């Protein structure tokens, strides 16, 4: 199929960017979206132009590196997938596809479609861990039974890949799904409860400091999340913070 691409080009974080139109031809419907971008870039390189910079790595939907806003949706129109798993069969011959970087004040653009997600790193560093030394002298793993239900729910929260689609999608650029998932994973496990109060306070404080917006419960993040992280995690974080503050 033949497509018109409207892509955000921006030289570096200080430059002013703009949308630029490109044409790609003979795109197979079996290609992934990023392979289509590879075709475009090969085309640009061969004609001596600078290729479009975009983040990607594992290309199997787990590393969380890829991050495009495609036709007005994070990771494009398909559900439960990252951009690398989005296939061109979701589009039709002759389509115009708008491709933008994830937008949020806390995710400044580095170049073209690449954004800086270090704000997520700093939130994790503020408390996204259990304070246990990796000494190997911990107690036997089975000396602490954990209900299957809690373990499964913690696992569901822990599935977050930190891609930032929730922030990009949210009209308020709120990071609460991301933070809620991490807070939840540890709050659900007995190992995590010792530090639960400090963790949620510190992580939320850092989240606010980074300039993420406020959750207004539109639920868009949950829909666009490639891993289907539930809004329940935000509710749990709210609860955890209330508990920690009283």
């Amino acid at each position, binding site marked *: 199929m033949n497509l018109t691409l409207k892509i955000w080009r921006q030289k570096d974080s200080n430059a002013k960017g703009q949308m630029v139109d490109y044409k790609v031809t003979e795109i197979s419907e079996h290609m992934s979206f990023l392979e289509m971008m590879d075709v475009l870039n090969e085309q640009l390189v061969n004609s001596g132009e600078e290729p479009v910079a975009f983040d990607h790595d594992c290309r199997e939907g787990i590393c969380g590196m890829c991050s495009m806003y495609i036709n007005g949706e994070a990771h494009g129109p398909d559900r439960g997938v990252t951009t690398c798993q989005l296939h061109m069969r979701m589009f039709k011959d002759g389509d115009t596809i708008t491709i933008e970087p994830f937008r949020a004040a806390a995710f400044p653009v580095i170049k073209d479609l690449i954004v800086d997600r270090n704000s997520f790193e700093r939130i994790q560093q503020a408390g996204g861990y259990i304070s246990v030394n990796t000494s190997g002298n911990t107690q036997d793993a089975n000396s602490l039974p954990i209900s299957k239900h809690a373990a499964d729910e913690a696992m569901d929260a822990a599935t977050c890949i930190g891609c930032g689609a929730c922030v990009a999608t949210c009209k308020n*650029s709120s990071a609460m799904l991301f933070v809620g998932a991490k807070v939840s994973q540890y709050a659900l496990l007995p190992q995590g409860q010792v530090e639960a109060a400090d963790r949620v306070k510190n992580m939320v404080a850092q989240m606010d400091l980074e300039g993420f917006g406020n959750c207004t419960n539109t639920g868009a993040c949950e829909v666009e999340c490639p891993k289907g992280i539930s809004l329940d995690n935000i509710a749990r*974080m709210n609860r955890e913070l209330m508990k920690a503050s009283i």
Partner: protein
Amino acid sequence: MSGFFKSSIGRKVAMALSAFFLMFFLIMHLSVNLLSLFSEDAFNTASHFMGTNPLVQFALQPVLIIGVVFHFVMGFILELKNKKAQGVAYAKNNGAANSTWMSRNMIYSGIAILAFIILHFIDFWIPELNTKYVVGDMSGMYNGEMRYFHELVEKFHSPLRVGAYVIAFVFLGLHLAHGFTSAFQSMGSTAGRKKALQNFGKAYSIIIPLGFIIIALYHHLFNNH
């Protein structure tokens, strides 16, 4: 605890708490107004009680005012903060793909409701205060009759005003359609995501505004001879 209400989540909780109070107030208000459909006397008695009881006037009423003002002011503050958090706007954004119109436009339904409340203040509340506390007439009488019912009917004479009321209540419905369950979520309860409460929320967000609309239309159509 003061730190809590400065945090993003604390503000959500504060919004939700004020919302719960306002949603409760709406039930109260509608209940009193509904009386006007059935009995002039009952309506007058209830109105007189609400208008003169010191507890209502000097305890509940200030709380209500603070609640309303807080909900609006905080709503605007959060909206501004959120706008700032967004940074550059998308060239193309397909919000309808993942969320309801109501949830994305609380600020606009809110502004519509604010406009209505201003109108409502001018219509009812300011004259009320004037009569009771400036003129000092606490009798609730006018020309030898209880005045409340007549005042109500009088106000619904103008089709313009009735039209404005109807539109405002449609916006209230839209606001509640998201706000009801959202408030639960903000309070840390997942109940708002369960079918039962969602249905209740839907019903609430339809019935409350519809009740007010019916009252306005009823008096406009049948009581203005």
